[in-house]
């Protein structure tokens, strides 16, 4: 099923609607009359907008995203070793920019705040003429910026966003996500947890009190309960919490023998550190070793938690130790340029930049509706995650999911996680309708 209007009939309808709306829309929402869509490139360059957290708690993750985007621009313009363009199954990209136009970029700082992220995206679209916005390290930001891009008539290629809502109830026709989501984490993790810890377990959830936390808790609960686990308690923790001792102390009293930390970033680092300090992992409850699970892992966060991550299961979108040709090519390009391996945030952002450029080349147009059509149901390989589908119904990528574990004997400061299993895509695929929401119609902005 397609919701795009990039058909003859659809274009006429979109044109009529956009034409009427153009009377009242602000300048940045209207494209030049001759081009038919927002910020149509007229010279020999095209501008992309990289909206990443350059300040605030995820600034390190944002810095890695920006490195990846700069590398992608270099490769798109024919520089460097070409990176993933060499292994990408689509051969539309030639290293001569996008549709022959040299790629330039502007950056914005999301600050991991929805309002700041919208303001920076708006500025890049309105003042800098960005034709596509990409990046971010938070689902709240992704949902907010995606909605703005929908209104503005530009494509949004999401960065690191894991909430089901981004391509679920808040999905938009102009938005696309390569990163995996909470549902997939739960579906991939549950069988591994059951085989390692048994099916008779009592879980205690600590959940970050915001959108991503809720969807992750729900996904892990549903998946583990289907395996036979019981959820004894689920407690929401404030996003601003730094000391989790008062939340962790009652865990053993509850009779739980597993603690699931639906936390990310600084929350994850602190709650995991506190849990280990309280000696939970040294305890025996219900005749079993007490265990901790972190559904979404990030290498940068694992670094913050230090030795506390050892032996703890979680999931991740990609890891630099993968040995497929795409991953090796990306690690080589990134590592040679920057001196250390890329994070999963860097990987998904780099891939999104290339996927957008490739879609433009295949569509033969920068028109966001044409690009969206090219991305929909696009199947590709060679980008580090195996065969991947950009599902047309919700603009979510479907690919294998990595279940990882904190490495017991790391050999370097980057060697923190080991891949336990690559869960096949068939096990994490779901019906597009289960999370509700409507894509709506593609908005070219003209």
């Amino acid at each position, binding site marked *: 099923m397609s919701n795009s209007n990039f058909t003859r009939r659809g274009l006429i309808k979109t044109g009529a609607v956009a034409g009427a709306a153009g009377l009242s829309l602000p300048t940045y929402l209207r494209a030049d009359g001759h081009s038919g869509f927002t910020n149509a490139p007229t010279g020999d360059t095209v501008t992309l907008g990289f909206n990443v957290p350059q*300040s605030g708690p995820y600034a390190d993750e944002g810095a890695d995203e920006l490195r990846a985007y700069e590398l992608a621009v270099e490769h798109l313009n024919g520089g460097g070793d070409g990176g993933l363009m060499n292994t990408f199954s689509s051969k539309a990209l030639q290293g001569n920019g996008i549709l022959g136009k040299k790629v330039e970029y502007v950056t914005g700082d999301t600050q991991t705040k929805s309002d700041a992220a919208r303001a920076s995206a708006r500025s890049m679209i309105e003042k800098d003429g960005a034709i596509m916005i990409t990046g971010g390290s938070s689902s709240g930001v992704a949902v907010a910026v995606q909605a703005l891009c929908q209104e503005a008539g530009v494509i949004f290629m999401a960065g690191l966003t894991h909430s089901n809502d981004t391509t679920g109830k808040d999905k938009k026709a102009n938005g696309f996500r390569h990163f995996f989501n909470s549902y997939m984490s739960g579906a991939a993790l549950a069988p591994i947890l059951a085989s390692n810890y048994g099916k008779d377990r009592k879980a205690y959830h600590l959940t970050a009190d915001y959108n991503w936390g809720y969807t992750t808790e729900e996904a892990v609960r549903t998946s583990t309960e289907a395996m036979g686990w019981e959820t004894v308690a689920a407690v929401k923790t404030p996003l*601003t919490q730094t000391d989790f001792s*008062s939340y962790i*102390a009652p865990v053993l009293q*509850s009779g739980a023998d597993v603690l699931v930390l639906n936390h990310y970033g*600084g929350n994850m680092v602190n709650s995991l550190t506190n849990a280990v*300090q309280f*000696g939970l992992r040294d*305890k025996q409850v219900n005749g079993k070793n007490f265990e901790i699970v972190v559904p979404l892992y990030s290498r940068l966060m694992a670094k913050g938690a230090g030795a506390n991550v050892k032996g703890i299961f979680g999931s991740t979108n990609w890891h630099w130790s993968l040995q497929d040709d795409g991953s090796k090519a990306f690690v080589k390009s990134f590592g040679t340029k920057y001196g250390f391996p890329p994070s999963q945030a860097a990987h998904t952002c780099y891939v999104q930049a290339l996927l957008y450029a490739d879609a433009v080349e295949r569509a033969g147009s920068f028109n966001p509706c044409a690009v969206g059509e090219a991305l929909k149901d696009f199947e590709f390989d060679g980008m580090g995650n195996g065969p991947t589908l950009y599902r047309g119904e919700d603009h979510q990528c479907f690919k294998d999911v990595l279940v990882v574990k904190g490495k017991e004997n790391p050999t370097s400061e980057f060697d923190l996680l080991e891949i336990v299993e690559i869960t096949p895509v068939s096990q994490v695929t779901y019906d597009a309708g289960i999370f509700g929401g409507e894509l709506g119609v593609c908005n070219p902005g003209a």
Partner: protein
Amino acid sequence: MDAIILQILNGLDKGSAYALIALGLTLIFGTLGVVNFAHGALFMIGAFCAVTLSRLLSLSHEVAVEGEVDFLGNPMMKDVPYIYDIFGEATGAAIIDWSVPLSILFAIPVMVAIGFIMERGLIQHFYKRPHADQILVTFGLAIVLQEIIKYFYGANPIPTPAPAAFTGSFDFGAVLGFDPNTIIYPYWRLVYFAFAAIIIGAVFAFLQFTTFGMVVRAGMADRETVGLLGINIDKRFTIMFGIAAAVAGLAGVMYTPINSPNYHMGMDFLVLSFVVVVVGGMGSLPGAVLAGFLLGVLESFASMGAVLEVLPGINQIIIYLVAIVILLTRPRGLMGRKGVMEE
């Protein structure tokens, strides 16, 4: 009962941090009359003193590991700390392991110097300005300090573990006759509580039993009269600013194993510490300590599952609720002195 004891214990270590920061805030306010919004940043800088010393002790040179390659396929290099070369591997590793307690020695002169520079370089120019100006300038200073730390150390938390001897937790449940594992408490948090008690005791003893402290207390009560007696009270107050900075810094040093330090940690404590100062009574040192522990324990109780079931979200507002109630019933706070912040 065991849940209550557990939350009291939890509240004590959180209260320790509040009390130490609020103690420094009150010292500065009581002596210099300055509302110092950069005090949380001093706590954060103290924590980064521990990070810095840990990194200095871990300064390394690379040695190739035979037969292994890195992520790019180049020969694997292993970092060997210089301290291993100097003291041998076992002693060197033990020194690095104890870097947090050792950081106390490193942090004291650093924090006193920073406090002195802050006071002489910036804050002294705002003594006679309204409190609103003081708040703005010290808040700005706090942001500058945390951005400097972020520039050099990054935005992510940096793990700074306690010595291996203090990992794990003490089973109070088994000792007190409850079921094992019902009241467990990390050793390092007990150390932190004891450390806070010692520092608080030392500050009070210093003020109570030394001539210097007596003059400072006299100056806090009546600055003009002490000045008329020919005593350079300003110089003593500057020294007190340095001592307050050192107290905040030491609180930060010892806090690093509890939560991995990041550049924002000072702000996380700052607002709550001000509430503690106000609840305790502006300018009252015992009030700051009492309110610190009281609010720490109350905050822990409010986070209990049973409490949250009845009053969802109470954990986020309990401190402010208590502050409102106390200020309505005792406008000067628990132990506030008449005339302070009332003119």
